[in-house]
């Protein structure tokens, strides 16, 4: 019998005796196993109710900790991506870029708090941007933090231009969370949808050519000679973690 087993094992298979015994035993062994597992679980549930409850609570706490940890990881990955994008930004002549982290975002006040301030050379009206484009200007400054008025704010105004064949310049202002209105006085030039809108540079602080967004709708008011262009910003403000302030 030993020889039969050994030769079968050497051939990489199970011998006939063992195989027959296991098959025959499986007929009852499996149902018995399932029943005994159920009985065992039931008995454990009764006798170890206290420890099972404690274990359950511990596992729930661990799960919560893991989900927080997971959220933190995703947050940091997003921040890393943004920092990589910022590092890839081309330099702006005559301006120094100060990297900052957003430490607060108040969408209803159209305000963001950055972790840099006057100690880092930050001054009011300096533009704040991400790799995707302008997000606002510095509004007030403390020693180590500052408040940014976001482009979504109705009080935010900036010289902007639609970059078609002939740049059309006007004043853009915030109109809520996801849109800006650019007012133009030139109604003669055609504007195509999705044309980029950038800063016009008619400002001491904000240089020309910083991306703002794209034109999504054009309305002409011929009675008053005004063209209103709805601009969809490039940056989703709620996702911003790392920014650059141009000194």
């Amino acid at each position: 019998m030993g020889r039969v087993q050994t030769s079968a094992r050497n051939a990489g298979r199970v011998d006939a005796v063992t195989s027959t015994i296991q098959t025959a035993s499986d007929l009852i062994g499996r149902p018995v196993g399932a029943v005994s597992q159920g009985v065992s679980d039931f008995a454990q549930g009764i006798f170890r109710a206290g420890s099972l409850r404690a274990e359950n609570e511990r596992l729930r706490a661990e799960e919560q900790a893991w989900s927080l940890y997971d959220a933190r990881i995703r947050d940091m990955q997003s921040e890393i991506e943004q920092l990589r994008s910022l590092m890839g930004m081309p330099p702006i002549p005559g301006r120094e870029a100060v990297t900052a982290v957003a430490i607060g975002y108040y969408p209803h006040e159209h305000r963001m708090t950055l972790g840099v301030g006057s100690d880092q050379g930050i001054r009011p009206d300096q533009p704040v941007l991400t790799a995707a484009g302008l997000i606002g200007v510095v509004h007030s400054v403390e020693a180590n933090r500052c408040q940014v008025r976001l482009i979504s704010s109705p009080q935010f105004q900036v010289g902007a231009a639609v970059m078609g064949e002939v740049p059309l310049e006007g004043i853009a202002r915030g109109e809520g969370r996801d849109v800006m209105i650019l007012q133009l006085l030139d109604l003669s030039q055609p504007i195509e949808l999705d044309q980029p809108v950038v800063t016009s540079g008619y400002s001491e602080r904000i240089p020309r050519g910083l991306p703002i967004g794209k034109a999504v709708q054009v309305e002409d008011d011929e009675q008053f000679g005004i063209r209103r262009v709805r601009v969809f910003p490039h940056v989703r403000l709620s996702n911003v973690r790392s920014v650059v302030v141009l000194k």
Partner: protein
Amino acid sequence: MRFWIALVVLWGGAALQQGAAERLAILGCAPDFLLAAVGPLALAYGRSGGAVVGFLAGLLHGGLAGANIAQYAASRAIVGFVAAWTGSAIEKLEPVTCLIHVAGLTVLGRILFMFMAPPAQIGSYLLATIGVAVYNGVIALPIYALLRKTVRKDPL
């Protein structure tokens, strides 16, 4: 008839060994249903019958374990023979006698097996043997009761 009873008991023991033994372990000692069945069966079947029952039990246990069947079969065959031999000296089968009988046979079977296939940690194996012996003694009681009502009415 007796042959079929032995086969059913051993088959049931094998099924329990496969499906329930590990789950019924107490303090790391799992019952050995097949070894527990050998004692009562051997009492009913005599020395040579006991050796055959032991051999079959070993065959089943070795097959289930996927281990060397010869070591299981040889050790259990000896246990079956000894079970019938010592059992013939028992005048009246009381529960305590049955328990001690099977517990002793379990110890014998596991020690024989230990010599044929030495385990990695002999100390813990011997400690576990005590627990398994007590466990088997308790398990054997209903088997004794069953066989007294079936096999003994149908004399060997």
